[in-house]
């Protein structure tokens, strides 16, 4: 029994509806306002997780492809929502990360921010991310990008402290520029190919002139790349991620750049698989530079969250390396690189969120995250020290954890395809990561206990809140451990997912099952209408 494709609407509709309800009753809540908001949000996050698990099992486990044509309008005319292994994997991880960060957010977000609408914004952000993973055409991808950006703008600046507004401006401007570039790409796609639907673009792009292909691919690389924070376009990330409350940083670090990475994966495998080969040197150079700059930049940073946000950049470089070598193996190993990149993406989303939450907890206990002014927390918070250590070595890639499996597989495919330089760079970046993680741990947990410069917030004096803060970190670390121990089946699964994502023909067939819609044909650069038959209800 195939599951109904209508399930695809839930990850977007459920958070939106819940946020709408929260806003609707925000006025009448009275004393129990925030409590009800928290309960509703938790409910929505749980529904989201359940649906994501269902979709993941069907799509990634059994290789199903879900296509929902909204309102029964067939593919190029209506809005297509598409879910396959790749998007449902990310959907599942997003649901996990969102659910894991939420207790931390509940424990640490203060009353003022909650009053200003933190909880509905959390749901709006989740909705935008989910929608971007499920979008089946370029313009809806843009819309969901903007939804998630809008939510992230407000989450970033909520509370409106000076540092937040200052970083908020940089974040907003650079992300808007990226969106503009992306929208230009969409306009060019519509002008030259006459469509915005992913499947139809994939169908028609091989017929288009090389100039169109190159411009389109370049614009998408710049637009998505700057969302993903690749090498020359990453400046918005370290400029802003350290200013909001740690819960917000954990959510951003887990989700936002991954949307850019996902869209890079999707667009390059679906639209230009041949460019993936001819642009391989460029992509590998970008990947190497991203890894190196991220790791080196982290070395020069004075605070926990600044270090961690530079490491996000470094790890995006690893994923890009996986994409760049995706098609270059022999015919048996096609997709190996992408599979490795996908498993790296999973590992990164899980462990980076855990690490930022642990770092945020350190920050809350010490009253500061500047490494020079903190230290010796291991005697006061042994559990936190343990969890931070586990997460840190997992990020660095030490064997029992998921970091090892993912880095090993990436390195293996890169060496197999004889890209020695970038492989060397990735090893070097991993070493730097290890060094940085050890620096973080040593500076914040070892040494003499330095009394916090300010009295740590009263929030942390209750046991319940400490448990709310640390339990999700522990669960995510356990998940990373499980992913590392079950590396073999996980890797096989992600190989399947990658194969599915690389199968362009199946995507095109899944989205437009009938040939009713092949009405527009391209003649050089203009097109003529021959017959139009829509399935107009």
């Amino acid at each position, binding site marked *: 029994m195939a599951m109904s494709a209508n399930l695809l609407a839930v990850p977007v509709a459920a958070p939106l509806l819940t946020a709408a309800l929260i806003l609707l009753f925000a006025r009448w809540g009275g004393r129990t306002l925030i409590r009800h908001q928290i309960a509703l949000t938790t409910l929505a996050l749980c529904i989201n997780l359940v649906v994501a698990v269902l979709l993941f099992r069907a799509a990634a486990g059994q290789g199903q492809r879900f296509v929902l044509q909204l309102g029964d309008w067939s593919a190029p005319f209506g809005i297509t929502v598409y879910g396959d292994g790749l998007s449902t994997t990310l959907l599942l991880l997003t649901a996990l990360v969102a659910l894991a960060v939420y207790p931390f957010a509940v424990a640490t977000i203060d*009353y003022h921010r909650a009053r200003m609408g933190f909880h509905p914004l959390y749901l709006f952000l989740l909705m935008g991310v989910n929608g971007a993973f499920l979008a089946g055409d370029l313009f809806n991808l843009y819309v969901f990008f903007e939804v998630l950006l809008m939510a992230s703008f407000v989450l970033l600046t909520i509370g409106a402290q*000076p540092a937040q507004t200052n970083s908020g401006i940089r974040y907003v*401007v650079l992300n808007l520029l990226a969106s503009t570039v992306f929208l230009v790409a969409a306009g060019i796609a519509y002008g030259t190919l006459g469509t915005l639907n992913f499947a139809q673009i994939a169908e028609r792009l091989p017929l288009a002139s090389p100039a169109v292909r190159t411009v389109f691919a370049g614009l998408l690389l710049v637009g998505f790349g700057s969302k993903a924070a690749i090498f020359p376009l990453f400046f918005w990330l370290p400029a802003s991620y350290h200013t909001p409350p740690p819960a917000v940083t954990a959510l951003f670090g887990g989700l936002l750049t991954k949307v850019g990475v996902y869209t890079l994966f999707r667009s390059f495998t679906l639209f230009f698989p041949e460019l993936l080969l001819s642009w391989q040197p460029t992509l590998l150079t970008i990947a190497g530079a991203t890894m190196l700059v991220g790791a080196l930049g982290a070395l020069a940073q004075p605070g926990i969250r600044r270090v961690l946000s530079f490491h996000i950049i470094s790890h995006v470089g690893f994923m890009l390396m996986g994409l760049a070598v995706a098609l270059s193996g022999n015919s048996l190993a096609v997709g190996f690189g992408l599979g490795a990149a996908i498993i790296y993406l999973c590992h990164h989303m899980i462990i980076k969120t855990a690490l930022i939450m642990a770092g945020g907890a350190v920050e809350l206990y010490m009253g500061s995250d500047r490494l020079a002014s903190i230290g010796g927390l291991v005697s006061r918070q042994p559990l936190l020290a343990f969890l931070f250590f586990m997460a840190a070595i997992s990020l660095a890639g030490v064997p029992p954890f998921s970091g090892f499996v993912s880095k090993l597989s990436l390195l293996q495919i890169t060496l197999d395809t004889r890209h020695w330089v970038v492989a060397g760079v990735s090893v070097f970046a991993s070493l730097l990561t290890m060094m940085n993680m050890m620096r973080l741990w040593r500076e914040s947990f070892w040494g003499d206990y330095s009394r916090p410069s300010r009295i740590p917030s009263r929030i942390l004096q209750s046991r319940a809140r400490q448990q709310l803060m640390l339990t999700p970190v522990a669960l995510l670390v356990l998940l990373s451990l499980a992913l590392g121990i079950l590396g073999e089946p996980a890797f096989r699964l992600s190989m399947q997912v990658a194969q599915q994502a690389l199968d362009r023909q199946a995507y095109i067939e899944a989205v437009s099952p009938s040939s009713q819609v092949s009405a527009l044909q391209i003649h050089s650069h203009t097109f003529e209408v021959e017959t139009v038959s829509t399935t107009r209800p």
Partner: protein
Amino acid sequence: MTSLLLAVAVGSLFASGTYLIMRRGQIKLILGLALLSHGVNLLLFGSGRLTEGRPPIFLDKTGYAETIELNLPADPLPQALILTAIVISFGITAFVIVLVNRRHTVTQTDYVHGEFVPLLREGDPFDFSESTEIDQHDWLAYEVDEVYDNDELLTGSPSFPPSEQDESTAMEEDQYKWP
């Protein structure tokens, strides 16, 4: 001819938008963003092929196929795309204006500071022992302990009625009942 005109308009909008964004003033920034979004909207408009005087929607369904065969209809999609893009840029412009206004009130300056100034200081770049220097350079520097959960600093924030203030302190001291 019209398409050339359109191309020139799009190009000049992009050029002036980019120039304005490069400046360090915030008002110029807003204007630049607005110009850029206008440029993109115009580009989307041009992507639908400029056809003059043709209807996009046929109310007379019987002559539908013949009309299409005779001449290309106007493309109805770009206007929908532009409308959506306008909605989005409206929302974002609104947000940026409020943000900039807020920042201007706090800092009394229109100037956008650089972020990486402290990294350019002399001496050992990895020596963080005297990190006060960073604060001096970037006086909007990040101070986590002041940023959240400190009620006293939110002096001007909207005052809650007494009942809600109770709740606020209850949350702080965790007599608050968690769901």
